[in-house]
Structure formats: structure tokens, C-alpha cells
């Protein structure tokens, strides 16, 4: 059952003084979503110009999840992302330039081109890595949460993954482990209805691939509207509260949809007719712009945010275009902690 805060059931009430989000936060959530959208849209444009190389996996249409969690997380909280991790990385405050730079394999990229788009990492921002082997990071997030528990740190580890990931063994091991050890970790399933090209329903024994498994770990069943940043934010805050209170993990399934193909190689021909269009009507940014208007935010404020974001993305693009390629000598650096790669004397 989708968990909807009772007070939020109709638009009228949202304008009430009981508004739990508040204007400042609301503008932040909007700005964040726009930034994720524009940065990824730019990544796509740069790919068409042959400036983004390798593969890349966009979250266009899924921004409300990254934004809702990103805004809810405190400094020190840790993000564990997938190859589809641009948005989650940006949502922790990593500069657009650093992300685009990595996609463009420039020296100013987050990892100077060594990792590429599937492995975005910024430890200083709490982005502990983007993992490209399905399921691998769920146990890893448990480990980071174990450290917090052991050390008495109050940070929460948040682990993002897709619907398809719920069918791999590591999902199961991590969920059981996290519950048995009562770890402060939040598992966020972004159910965008597809694994790569195959509909998740074709290959999954239950309707909700994450939520319908929660009871197998003694967890409550949580399905939320992943295209509504407010709802995401609330679910995040609630899960964080549980985690920080020492009451263990949560598993949250967010219903959403990706507007683009799985990766740059995918024209997404497998979609049934009309499906994309239907979901575009539920575009999280569109929804949120309407929300802002309901709360009386003027077009000028919205346009100003849009313009500011665009400026950031434009500046980042220029900086990346101007940035040098990585120097060749980094090929063999940082294999080991001594900075090098020597496996022999």
C-alpha cells in the first residue's frame, strides 16, 4: 500500500499552515530537480556532439527520488549509487562540472576519467561510489552502516538501486543482514518498470519487486510515488529517523519511469505505445512546478531558478570543454595505497 501522509491528500490542505515541507525546502527540492534534469540533458547533448564518451545511463524522469533523498540527507550521510548515479551524485552537492568532466573523460572529472560515468564517486560529499555490478553495493552499504553503528556515529547509509536489482542474490543477503544487525541503512528501490529492456513484471514473482519482499525481512511494505519529491522527502525523513534512532533499516519502493533509454545505446523501442507519454504527464518536474504554483510561488521565482541552474550547467560545460584530457601517467596510479601499481619488487 502506498504510504501517504494523511494530511497531504488534497491540494487545498497543502496550502494550510500545517504544510510540513515549507517554502525554503520546497524551492530547494525544485532547484535540485531542475539541476539534475538540465545536467543530464546536457550530458545527452554532449554525447550527441561526441564529447561524452563510453556509456552513460540517464535518470531523466526519475529526478524526484534523487532530489527528495539528497535534500533529506545530512552532511556525513553516505550515498551508494548505481551506474545510473549522475543524479544521486549531483544531489549531494557535487559540482556539475565534476560530473560532466568525468563523463567527458577530462582531467577535471571526479575521478579524472579513470572511473567513467558508471562509477561516480565523491567521498568528500558522502558519495561513496557508484557500482556497476548489479546488487554489489547493497552489502557494501550495510558495511558502512555497520561502521556507524560500531563507532556510534549518527550517519545513515542510503543505497539506491533499480527494480531489476531485487532479483539478484546480493539483494536478499543484504536485506537479511541489515535487519539482523539492525543497521542504519536505507534501501531505496527506484522501480522504473524495466530492467534494461525487459519489463520487470515479466521476470518477477510479485507485483512490487522490493516492497512485496519486505515482509521476508520483517520490514513494513512501503510503496511511494517516486515522481513526487515531497512524498519522497517525507519517506526519506521517516526512514532516517528510524535509522538514527537505532531501529534498523528501511526498504522503500519508489514508483517512477525513465524517459530515456536504458543507456546511450538504447532507443527504447520495447515500450508499449503511449507508455512514455502517459508518464511524461507525470514528469516529476512538471508535477513540482504545479505544486510550487499551488503554494503561490510566482513564475518569476521559478524562471529565476531555472535560469540560475542553466547558468551553472552552461558554465560547467564550458569548463569541461576547456579542461585538458587526463595525463597519461595516471594509468598506473592508485592501484595500491602507496599510489602505484607495483605487484613485485
Amino acid at each position: 500500500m502506498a504510504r501517504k501522509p494523511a494530511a497531504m491528500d488534497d491540494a487545498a490542505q497543502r496550502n494550510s499552515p500545517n504544510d510540513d515541507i515549507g517554502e525554503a525546502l520546497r524551492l530547494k527540492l525544485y532547484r535540485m530537480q531542475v539541476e539534475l534534469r538540465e545536467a543530464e540533458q546536457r550530458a545527452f547533448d554532449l554525447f550527441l556532439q561526441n564529447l561524452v564518451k563510453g556509456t552513460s545511463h540517464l535518470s531523466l524522469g526519475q529526478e524526484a527520488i534523487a532530489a527528495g533523498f539528497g535534500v533529506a540527507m545530512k552532511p556525513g550521510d553516505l550515498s551508494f549509487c548505481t551506474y545510473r548515479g549522475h543524479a544521486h551524485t549531483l544531489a549531494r552537492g557535487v559540482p556539475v562540472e565534476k560530473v560532466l568532466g568525468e563523463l567527458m573523460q577530462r582531467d577535471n572529472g571526479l575521478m579524472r576519467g579513470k572511473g567513467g560515468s558508471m562509477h561516480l564517486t565523491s567521498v568528500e560529499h558522502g558519495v561513496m561510489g557508484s557500482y556497476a555490478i548489479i546488487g554489489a553495493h547493497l552489502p557494501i552499504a550495510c558495511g558502512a552502516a555497520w561502521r556507524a553503528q560500531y563507532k556510534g556515529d549518527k550517519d545513515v547509509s542510503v543505497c539506491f538501486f533499480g527494480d531489476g536489482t531485487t532479483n539478484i542474490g546480493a539483494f536478499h543477503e543484504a536485506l537479511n543482514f541489515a535487519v539482523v544487525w539492525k543497521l542504519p541503512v536505507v534501501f531505496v528501490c527506484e522501480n522504473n518498470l524495466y530492467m534494461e529492456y525487459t519489463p520487470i513484471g515479466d521476470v518477477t514473482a510479485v507485483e512490487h519487486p522490493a516492497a512485496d519482499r519486505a515482509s521476508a525481512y520483517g520490514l513494513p511494505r512501503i510503496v511511494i510515488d517516486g515522481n513526487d519529491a515531497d512524498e519522497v522527502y517525507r519517506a526519506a525523513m521517516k526512514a532516517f529517523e528510524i535509522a538514527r534512532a537505532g531501529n534498523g533499516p528501511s526498504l522503500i519502493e519508489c514508483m517512477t519511469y525513465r524517459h530515456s533509454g536504458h543507456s546511450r545505446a538504447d532507443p527504447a523501442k520495447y515500450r508499449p505505445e503511449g507508455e512514455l507519454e502517459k508518464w511524461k504527464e507525470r514528469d516529476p518536474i512538471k508535477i513540482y512546478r504545479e505544486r510550487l504554483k499551488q503554494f503561490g510561488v510566482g513564475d518569476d521565482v521559478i524562471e529565476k531558478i531555472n535560469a540560475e541552474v542553466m547558468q551553472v550547467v552552461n558554465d560547467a560545460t564550458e569548463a569541461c570543454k576547456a579542461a585538458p584530457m587526463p595525463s597519461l601517467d595516471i594509468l598506473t596510479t592508485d592501484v595500491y595505497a602507496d599510489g602505484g601499481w607495483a605487484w613485485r619488487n
Partner: protein
Amino acid sequence: MAELTYRDAVARGIAQEMERDNDVVFLGEDIGKAGGVFKATVGLYEKFGPLRVRDTPISEQAILGAAMGAAMTGLKPIAEIMFSDFFAVCFDYIANEFPKSRYMTNGQVKCPLVVRTGNGAGSRFGAQHSQSIENWAMMIPGLKVVAPSTPLDVIGLMAAAVRDPDPVIFFEHKSLYATKGEVPDGEIVDTLGTAKIVRPGKDATILALALMVPRALEAAERLKAEHGIDVEVIDLRSLVPLDTQTVLASVARTHRLFTVEENPRLCGWGAELVSIVADEAFYDLDGPPVRITTPHIPLPAADILEDLALPNAERIADRVRRSLEG
């Protein structure tokens, strides 16, 4: 005779075997309706239907386990593991189940299946989607291991693999999918365990596999043109069974050995070949056997870095020349 891509050769090879034998079935992620993420299996779903070409969940252990159970009891499954790097999430089947079941049961259990997988670098996918891991399979007793370099070999070795009564790991090279080659019409069936001398020569022997074969050939042309050095290039094609006779005979003629490996250095197949030759043909060798490999590092994503990591024609030619001159 038709010109075919390596990619299309995969689909043709599988189709040839599925047409021949109803017990040949095919499973993997996105292989069916979508035709595979590398588009190497386009058309099979339409031709053979959803009962023989089955899309699976993201459950590599279930894919390989199911393939094994089916193989044990009468089917001839072909399983796709999308990227060879993902062998790491289902390695128990590769290392402990497929190859040991016949031996442990004193011959009672058979395991005739093929695992095909996209191997190797060149797509700028980074460290977890670019590895060349033939040695992960070669090191396990009980497996057979194949890695074709041409469309023709893809079809012929695929047929041989499917017809083989033992588990075969079939490495397709991602950077070869778009390459083309002439392929005769009609049924093509090759033989596992046969290396091919793809360029005869007298001054040195170069052993190569998969993507390294065209690079070794290019190096050979350069060495000839620029330095008058005439090297023999052998495409190993199959690591298990291993055609050591062809290798030893070549070294007996050329007296020098070079191996060109894409895998990172330690415990690669080059080490095995060098140690066989050093032991059994020590007195044939006129100089040290040399391994040319990717350095022992994870692979970088950036194109200029990835290109630097892999052996290329220039590096191969340079190393051979320096060695022969020195």
C-alpha cells in the same frame, strides 16, 4: 559466401544449432525480445519462440544453475552472461559446479552446455565491464574455453561448443562485434582445441587470442615492412583443449616466442604457454620468451587511458623488434 559481422555470426551460429537440435535452448538477460544488449542475438526470439529463447531476471546464479540442471537432464543450453565481468556473481557454477560434477560422480553426471559472454576492452566501459578474463576459466579443471577472433570462427566454434559433451565457456570479444569477415553458406562446424597459423613466418612465433589476433597481425606486417622481420602469428582460438603441438612446432621453427594477452598480467594464459614452451622446448629457444600483456591494473574508462593499457600493434612490434635485435 557472404560478408558477415562477428555480431551477426553469433546469431547465425546459435540459429544453426537451434535448427539442428530441438534440445538446444537459449537463456539470458534481455537476449530474447530485445535481441541482446550487443544485438548479437537479434532474430532468434522471433525464429525459435519464447520457449526456446528465454529472457531471464537479473539472476546470474539462476541462469547458470538452470542451464546446468537442464544440461544434466537432457537439454543443450546456451546461457548468456552479458559481460564476462559478471562471471564474478555466478562463479560458483563456473568454478565448482559445471566442471566438477562429472568427476565427482565418477562419470554419472554430464554437463553439456555453453556459456557465452561479452569479454574484453575497448568500449570505454571502465573497470567492471571491460575485463578480459579467459584465465578465470582456463584455470579451472573440467572446463573447455574458446575465444574466436573472426566471424567464421564464431560460427564454427559455436557449433563445436554446442555439440561438445562438456561445459564450454565461449568468450566473444566486445570490440570485435562490429568487425566483418567472409563466411561460406551452409553449415559450418569447427573443432575445439585447434590453433590456427594465421600468418606463417620464420623469425619468431607470436601467440594471440581474440582482439589481440588482428593486432598481432598488424604488428607482423609492420615488422616485415619496417624491419624485415618475419613473424609467425598463431591464433590460439581455444585455450582448453590447448593445441600445444602447433605452438611447439612453430617455436621449433622460429626459435623465439612472444605471447600477446589482453588480460592483466598475473597468471594469464601467456604464463601457461611460456611455461610449457620453456619446459618442453627450452633448447629450441634462442632467446627469452616474452609476454606482452595489459599491465596488472584495473582498466580505466577514459579512451586515451584504455588505449594505452592494451597491447597494440605498435607496442607489440616494438617489443618483438627490441627482443630480436637485443
